[in-house]
Structure formats: C-alpha cells, structure tokens
C-alpha cells in the first residue's frame, strides 16, 4: 500500500500538485485520470522520487519514502517496477538483455536461472521469439510488453505505469490493460497507472482517482464512475458524443 499524505509540488511558482491525499491499495489496479496538464505525470514522478515534493509525505507500507537519504531510497526503489510512456528500453541492449538487466544488477541468480526468469517474464507478457531483437526492431505494443516484462523481472511490490496505452491501437491497449491487471492480482502488487484512456478506466479500474488542476477531485471505482453525478467527471469521461449516447442508452 502506498499512502500519499498532503503532498504539494510547485515548478517556478506554479502549483502542479496541491495538497493531494490518496491511498493506493495493494493487489488493486489504481488508476489516476485527468485531463492533460492536471498533474498526473508529476504525481507519479513524485511517487517514485524522480521529483522532490515540497510538502507532505509518501509512505510505502509505512516507510517514509520522501524523508530518507538517497542510499536508503535506492533500497526501496529495488522493490519498484515502472513502465514509462515511451517504454524507456535501453537501445543498446536486446530484448532479453533489457529484461535481464535488473536481475543481473540486483539478483543473485546463476546465468541459467536468470535466463529462465527472463523467459518466464517474456512469456508472461506473451512475447516469444523476440529475445534477440533490439528495441528499434519492435512495434509500439511489443516495446510496452518488454517494458512490463522488465518491470516485473525482480518481482516488484509496487508497479507504476505512465500512460501504458498511449500510441497503441484499441485492441493492443486492451491486451496491455488486461496484462497489467492480471499481473497485479497474480503477484499482489500495488499498481498505479496514469491514463486518459476511458476503455482502461472502465475495464480495469479497481480504484480511480480523478485529478483536476493538481487537486484530487474525486475517487471511486469503475462502477461509481458510471453512476456519479459529478459534472467535472462526467464532462471528462463522457467527452465524446458516442460515450454520451451510450450513457444515455444505458440509463
């Protein structure tokens, strides 16, 4: 579980996160939604300490991540997996080298065990026969899968995904969503996903947090978001005419 307590973040006197309080639960897919510029990416980067928060605290299962030395922070980071928007795969390494990288850096596995673990992770994301390819030879969906495989290579307790569906077709998006959702439940991970893909919200949103202008405006699950009368949420979720018609028909 990750507890975010009253955090604030400003850039050049612009408040990007304004006293945000939220709890991300274990074994659940926690989605952070909001329009562009609402502070989603800043929130996720504050959670993993790529940005320093100005106020408040972030607790990883009771361990204060925001008020510790960099060396101690690195120990907690070994329990974190992250899938970046663009994949952030290492260009000079093949697919299997990318997935093996955290294992070789921090694991104590033999070469054989490492190879088996890499194959397990790649199979888990349904990516076979791609071990020797370089990132430049992969499609967008394949890159995301490799990024997920790398993120789960060390059995993380916390998984962060920054817009995992961006740039993917609807079918591949659903595959990636389901994959993250299954992995979260299977390994009891605390997963936090940034997205503005409404399909993801309605498919896998165990817990949904709506950010607007750097503040938490709403929180609930995928059922609650369908039923809410909050105008801001409805304007965001049912932005398209199609969604508006579907909602009207379902009511």
């Amino acid at each position: 579980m990750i507890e975010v307590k009253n955090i604030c973040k400003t850039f050049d006197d612009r408040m990007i996160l304004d006293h945000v309080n939220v709890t991300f639960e274990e074994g659940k897919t926690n989605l952070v939604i909001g329009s562009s510029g609402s502070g989603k990416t800043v929130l996720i980067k504050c959670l993993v300490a790529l940005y320093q928060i100005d106020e408040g605290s972030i607790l990883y299962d009771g361990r204060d991540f925001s008020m510790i030395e960099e060396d101690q922070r690195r120990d907690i980071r070994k329990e974190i997996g992250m899938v970046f928007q663009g994949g952030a795969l290492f260009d000079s390494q093949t697919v299997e080298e990318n997935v093996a990288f955290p294992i070789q850096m921090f694991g104590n596995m033999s070469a054989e065990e490492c190879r088996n673990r890499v194959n397990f992770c790649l199979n888990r994301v349904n990516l076979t026969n791609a071990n020797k390819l370089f990132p430049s030879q992969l499609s967008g969906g394949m890159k995301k899968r490799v990024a997920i495989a790398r993120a789960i290579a060390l059995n993380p307790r916390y998984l962060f995904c920054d817009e995992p569906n961006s740039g993917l077709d609807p079918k591949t998006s659903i595959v990636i969503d389901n994959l993250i959702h299954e992995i979260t439940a299977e390994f009891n991970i605390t997963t936090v996903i940034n997205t503005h893909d409404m399909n993801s919200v309605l498919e896998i949103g165990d817990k949904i947090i709506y950010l607007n202008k750097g503040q938490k405006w709403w929180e609930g699950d995928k059922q609650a978001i369908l039923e809410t009368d909050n105008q801001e949420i409805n304007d965001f979720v049912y932005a398209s005419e199609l969604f508006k018609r579907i909602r009207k028909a379902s009511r």
Partner: protein
Amino acid sequence: MKIFYFPGHYYLFIRNVFRKPQRFGWFRKQLLYEINSLGINSLPIITIISLFMGAVITIQTAFNIDSPFIPLYAVGLATRDSIILEFSPTIISLILAGKVGSSIASEIGTMRVTEQIDALEIMGINSSSYLVLPKIIAAVLINPFLIILSMFLGIAGGWFFGVIAGSVTTTEYLYGIQYAFRPFYIFYALIKTLFFAFIITSISSYYGYYTSGGALEVGSSSTKAVVYSSIFILVANYILTQLLLA
C-alpha cells in the same frame, strides 16, 4: 551568483560519478566497451591527422629555414618538439573533444530525453556513476596510448613526406629527432593527456546528463560539450605548461 552555479553543480555531479560501481562485473564490461568505443574507434582519424600534420610541420619548417647557418637537422628537431610538446597532446585532444565529446553528450542526452536514465534511477541504480565512470576511466586509460601513437605517426609522417618532398634527408632528419632529446617532454605530454581525457569525458557527460527537452536540446548539449571541453582544454593547457615547464 550564476557564475558559481556551474562549478558547484559540476562538482556535485563528479562526486556522484565517483561512487563504488553497483556490480564490478558490469563495470568491467562497460569499461572494455568504452575503451573500444572512445579509443580504438578513434584510431583512423588520429592516424590520418597525425601523419599529415607531421608532414606539414616538416615541410613548413624546412621552407622557413633559409639561413645557411641553421643546420638542416633542425627540421627534425623542430618537428619532434612541435609534435611531442603541443600537437599530439593538445591538438589531438581538441579533435577528440569534437569526436568523442559530441558522441558522449548526444548518447547520454538521448538517454535522458527518452527516460532511460529515469528508468535506471527507478531500478535503484546510480545512473551517473553507471554511465559516466566507465567513460572517464576508459579515456584516462586509453588516451595516453593514442597520444603516443600520434607522436610516433607524426614524426614518421614528417620523415616520409619530408624526404619525398626533398625538404630533408633521412640522415639529417633522424639526427635531428634524436638531438638534445629530453624524456621529460614525453612525461609532460602524457600528464597533459590525462587531464585532457578527464576534461573531455566529464564535461561532455555533464552536458549530456543534464539535457532536458527533446532532439533540439540534445543537439544543443552536444555543441556545448564540444565548445566547453575545448575551452577547458586550452585553459588547462596553459596552466599545466606554466606549472610543468616554467
């Protein structure tokens, strides 16, 4: 106060770079890769430049000696001293600042803007040490060999092209390059080379590491890396020459 920003920030960066590597096996692998990338891959350009610069120095020196009181072996002597004292350590380092410096800054800068450095940090890896330390150590180890090779090729190029052009005879040239030779000159050149290798790799890495934005900023970091590495090489050259030769 901005004038103090760069030295302070650069110092903090370097302090972070010189941390114990996460895994020594990985460090060794990276080190060998960088020796090949920064050193061995620079051999062709160093060979060509050294041969032709040696040739030009010899022919120009011979051309400018028109007094019958100056012996012809002075051509060999002048070529040797020019190459050992200044051309090989300083000019080759400036050329490497262009070739290697821009390559380092654009490689690390691209890793920054594509979030690969963030990915390393999130894994709990000291990204600056992981990426930069092997480059600095590799350059400090391999550059002295490159400079010694450059000295040899420069002097050999001077002899070969000087004789072909009829500017000097083999006997006089060989006598000249051995005349009043001080081994300290080699030591002086290698000391400079070590400092220059550190300057090229650390400054280029610094500008690459702190790139923010996109492709345009990567190009800008690459340019800054070359410009500032060159300026610092020239300043360090003056200070080291003052300290070692004055």
